[in-house]
């Protein structure tokens, strides 16, 4: 701010200071960092999907022909195969977990439930033609820890569970998701909340603390951004997950946008149309990096710890870091940020001592 405001007469207030703020304001109106994170990433070169055709124009008849072939392949060949696989995967999951849930608690039950989860998730990932590269498998999250990752879409869950079982945290849904949730909780303990309970942060923290205290329970999977971002950046991590204690295992997930856009724009598409879009893309290709575990250091509060983890994930995944809250796409920004700007400015004009 100092650079932008320096004027003719040193650093006292001038009439021209209004220019700086109005220019910043209008720049934000033309393009701001947050809004662009909630639309799909723009591609450098077209990948023959209409949905990513934002800036490209008609080039030649040959390209149109290739595109038509692509459409035929995707919709008439790949889509039916994928839908069938998805069907098989989900039914197996529901049936399998219900059956395993009948067994009494024992290590056999845990092993079977792991088997069921892994197999069905792998089938579901194949249903999306997912190709996943796992890096640093030695750092895979252990029992009794909390796994933290950047959030792009509900498919993140599938991608992580193909390589290991996690206890999930989330709201209870209705419909198809609800059936799956109820089935899964029979086989191994997930933490599903009612919508009303989620508002009570202490209740949530208490339940999560109980879960990780039990070292035999699976690591909890949490997405601290709280909302889906378009995989070009990492937004503010909410501090709630970092107050629970325990070891945090960060995981970075980066999708390759050339094969298919995995971002779920929940205000634009509902779940079913999103899945259809996924199944009619070329493939879902992504990289998953497991990172060494982190714990909160002495004298570090939850917010600083959250930021540290966020930076680590951003650097690993090659994403940019933003201090903004992902919830901004729905709610207004807090006044504390405006006060900070006001403070900076006042220090400049009034901090020069008493005026004559």
């Amino acid at each position, binding site marked *: 701010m100092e650079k932008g405001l320096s004027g003719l007469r040193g650093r006292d207030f001038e*009439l021209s*200071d209004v220019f700086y703020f109005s220019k910043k304001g209008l720049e934000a109106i033309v393009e701001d960092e947050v809004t662009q994170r909630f639309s799909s990433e723009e591609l450098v070169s077209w990948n023959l999907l209409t949905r990513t055709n934002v800036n490209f124009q008609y080039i030649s008849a040959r390209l149109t022909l290739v595109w038509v072939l692509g459409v035929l392949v995707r919709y008439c060949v790949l889509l039916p195969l994928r839908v069938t696989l998805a069907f098989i995967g989900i039914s197996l999951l529901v049936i399998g977990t219900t059956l395993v849930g009948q067994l009494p608690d024992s290590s056999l039950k845990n092993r079977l439930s792991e088997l069921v989860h892994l197999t069905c998730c792998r089938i579901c990932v194949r249903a999306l033609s997912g190709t996943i590269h796992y890096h640093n498998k030695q750092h895979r999250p252990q029992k009794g820890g909390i796994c933290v990752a950047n959030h792009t879409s509900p498919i993140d869950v599938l991608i992580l569970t193909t390589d290991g079982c996690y206890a999930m945290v989330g709201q209870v849904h209705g419909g198809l998701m609800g059936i799956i949730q109820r089935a899964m909780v029979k086989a191994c303990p997930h933490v599903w909340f009612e919508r009303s309970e989620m508002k009570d942060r202490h209740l949530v923290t208490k339940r999560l603390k109980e879960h990780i205290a039990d070292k035999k329970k699976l690591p909890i999977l949490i997405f601290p951004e709280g909302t889906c971002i378009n995989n070009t950046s990492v937004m503010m991590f909410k501090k709630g997950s970092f107050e629970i204690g325990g070891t945090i295992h960060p995981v970075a997930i980066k999708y390759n946008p050339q094969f298919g856009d995995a971002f779920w724009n929940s205000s634009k598409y509902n779940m079913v149309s999103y899945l259809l879009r996924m199944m009619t893309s070329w493939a879902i290709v992504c990289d998953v990096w497991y990172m060494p575990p982190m714990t909160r250091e002495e004298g570090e509060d939850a917010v600083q710890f959250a930021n540290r983890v966020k930076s680590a994930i951003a650097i690993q995944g090659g994403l940019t870091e933003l201090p903004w809250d992902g919830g901004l796409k729905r709610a207004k920004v807090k006044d504390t940020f405006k006060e900070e700007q006001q403070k900076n400015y006042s220090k400049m004009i009034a901090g020069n001592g008493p005026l004559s």
Partner: protein
Amino acid sequence: MGSRSSHAAVIPDVDTIRRETGFSQASLLRLHHRFRALDRDKKGYLSRMDLQQIGALAVNPLGDCIIDSFFPSRSQRLDFSGFVRVLAHFRPVEEESPGIRDPKQPEPLNSRMNKLRFAFQLYDLDGDGLISRQEMLQVLRLMVGVQVTEEQLESIADRTVQEADEDGDGAVSFLEFTKSLEKMNIEQKMSIRILK
């Protein structure tokens, strides 16, 4: 796919807007794209709420004043031409010599005069053509929040009005405003480079 018709056809009155604002076709398309992105409920116009949702604007101390400048005369709807007209004030000035310009044509929106008029209007809250000491105080208060005491703020406002006020009426008119800023490089300070 490829043979989509030119987007410009989607923008209403695109030729009039181009003439008045001087934006290039590409810039207009980009701004139209942005307009539609900000219009989350697809109403076809923007409301105050749509602009307030921009994080970087909401934390700007003058954010509300800037939003008001888009909505003149109590209207609650901002259509695309209104949106672009305000943004045109911040278009960078071209390097052409003033002699070539046709004097009969209205001054381009991004001329020095019009940029200054825009800034003046941010201070002049009641629109009477004069910045009174009270209005100066109000705008200052917006920029500093609660961080500065009333006395300090009053002395800053008094000093500023005194320095700019030439005819001694206790308020700053537009001419006095322009005179006090004549040495300032307005063209550069009030231009957003990406808006060509």
